[in-house]
């Protein structure tokens, strides 16, 4: 119980740092496009989750269920790389500076890592 509480506190701490970095990368340069990174990473686990609910993973005879799960994974992979690629695209065309790019990428990775670890902890608790 104490370990779980510690994890939640540290995870929320990391999440706050991630949001701080992304918002700072926007506010320091008065250019609010990097906020899209947050939207991308919040959306990223969604296709995986929806398709996981749609399909029945225990059904090994019918592979159509697996195709839906695969589609969800494909979309998640797309969105995760989008979170990194978006600031790079913006920085390459000088819409944001390279400092803002690095800050928003690090912040985005922290945010997404937090979301993923939260999901893993919840899954572990569901099993037992």
């Amino acid at each position, binding site marked *: 119980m104490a370990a779980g509480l510690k994890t939640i506190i540290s995870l929320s701490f990391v999440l706050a740092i991630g949001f701080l970095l992304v918002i700072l990368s926007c506010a320091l340069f008065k250019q609010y496009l990097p906020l899209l990174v947050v939207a991308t990473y919040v959306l990223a686990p969604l296709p995986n989750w929806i398709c996981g609910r749609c399909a029945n993973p225990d059904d090994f005879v019918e592979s159509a269920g697996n195709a839906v799960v695969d589609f969800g*994974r494909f979309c998640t992979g797309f969105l995760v*790389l989008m979170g990194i690629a978006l600031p790079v695209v913006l920085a390459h065309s000088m819409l944001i500076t390279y400092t803002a790019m690095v800050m928003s990428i690090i912040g985005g990775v922290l945010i997404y890592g937090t979301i993923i670890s939260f999901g893993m902890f919840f899954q572990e608790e569901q099993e037992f």
Partner: protein
Amino acid sequence: MSEERLWKFKKPEWMNSAVARSAGVYAAGALFSLSFFLLLDAAVFSHSKLNGSDPPIHIAFIDWLPLIFSSLGMLIINSIEKTRLSADSFSYSGSGVAWKARVVLFLGFASLAGGMAGGVTVLVLKYVVPGVVWPGLWMGVANVLANGGVMMSSVVLWVSQNMEDEYSYNLAL
């Protein structure tokens, strides 16, 4: 099973695990995203103030066309049920499903290769022949890279979908 094998080298064991399979699907999505954003980067670059090409060259619908064809080919190739392809002797060939699957698969591969060829064509005709120099040449190079990325992505997706059969086979036994 082992007598049907054609190649000397066996598929390594770790490739049959579920983890490697889902990692392959994630990687395919990431590769597709990478190629899409390469071309998007070229489009954003072409309308930013950095694009100093003279006379001005912009990304138009022509530049997107190869990527559209590549993506269409990828969609076709990976929508086909792979088990229908190997059924040449019995049950499926009666209604000609294997034959149909091969025709559709051929269309998909043709579309993919056509997209790649189109990317090279756009690079040569629109950028190399008029003599565009480097910052502008990126728009053509990104086109080729994007189509190559879609191709790689569909290869990765194909391989990781073929893993599935072995995996479920092992589980069923």
